């Protein structure tokens, strides 16, 4: 019981990062949070399969990835890719510029293929080493490296063609 509670407490402390990772997969905040909720639910039920001493964040990212693939993806609101309220917020100062820049990058990420979004989320956003990220995705490190390189060059193209992102 106490072990479970300690684990639950650690998971709770990781919630901000779980939400952030989920946002790289699901554009809409609500979809991303549904995904986190489902993953937390599964983590609680399967807490015995977590090996103490290993990275808890990586274990949770894998649960999120699987939950995304199994359930959430199917019902997420893909038809409406960009939330209208996200656009046109805060205009006219430096803060707005930084905000627009962040939004442009988020949009570019959302246009990547799913496997590219996963590597970008794990390595660039969550800062996992290649080896850990490859373990989360259950792929060889070489595959992860080439996916990441391709994802980056696609992002570079998308960001250098603002028209494609803003349309």
């Amino acid at each position, binding site marked *: 019981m106490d072990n479970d509670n300690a684990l*639950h*407490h650690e998971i709770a402390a990781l919630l901000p990062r779980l939400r952030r990772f989920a946002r790289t997969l699901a554009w809409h905040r609500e979809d991303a949070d549904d995904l986190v909720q489902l993953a937390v639910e599964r983590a*609680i039920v399967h807490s015995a399969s977590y090996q103490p001493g290993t990275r808890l964040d990586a274990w949770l990212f894998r649960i999120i990835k699987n939950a995304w693939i199994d359930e959430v993806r199917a019902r997420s609101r893909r038809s409406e890719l960009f939330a209208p309220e996200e656009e046109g917020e805060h205009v006219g100062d430096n803060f707005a510029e930084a905000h627009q820049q962040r*939004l442009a*990058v988020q949009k570019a990420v959302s246009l990547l293929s799913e496997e590219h979004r996963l590597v970008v989320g794990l390595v660039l956003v969550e*800062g996992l080493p*290649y080896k850990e990220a490859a373990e989360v995705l259950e792929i060889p490190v070489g595959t992860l490296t080439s996916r990441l390189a391709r994802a980056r060059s696609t992002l570079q193209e998308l960001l250098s063609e603002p028209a494609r992102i803003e349309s």
Partner: protein
Amino acid sequence: MTFSDETLMAYADGELDLATCRAIEDAMRRDAALARRVAQHKAMRTDVFAAYAPVADEAVPPRLAQPLRQATVVSLESVRARREAEQQAVRKASRGRRWSWPEWGALAAMLMVGVMAGHYGIGMLPIEGGDNLASRDGVLVAQGRLSTALEQQLGGISGAVRIGTSFVAQDGGYCRSFMTAQGTAGLACKQGATWKVPLMVQNPVREQQGEYRLAAAEMPLPVLEAVDQRISGQPLDAKAEQEAVRKGWQR
């Protein structure tokens, strides 16, 4: 020596061994184009990280933290059902209507400990000895493990005491609901250095209380009602709770 784009990317990500890093750094000093490509990989990493960084600073919606506060969750449905039941209980209490007979029956089965202690002093309490409570000037105050838990423990963590909701009361002070492994539940509010206990109830079902049961037990309705009557705004989230612990629950 030439380096593939993947190698330069891995260098930018800090993934390479020292010898390869040195070799790339040497090459970068001689080759400006190579240095630019590395810089581009680094900039991409920084930009993508920055694009999502604010998400981690957002307040975590309570629905995500909730399942982690209750140790015996089995399904998403049960989380939703429990949340709805709790919301309904609070709504019911806040409507202030007369309780129906079954509700009165349930309440009557609980001993209103706080009232008794106020009138008769701590010696009359049929529970807990004086370990967790003391009577000061006719007011019940927390001491011992209960006091320590109220002061230091975060919501949802179970031990001898489980803290429920923490909130700012309408009088501006902090209050927290709690349950103990001995089957009592109540509300405590910080006044000066003391946690005063304006309400405490004893759950008459005493068998198998213990710490395991405590983790899953529902806060009794009179406590939920007391929270609802006193609360100003929303309950504290985990971050605000930690901050309050750090400041010793002084505002």
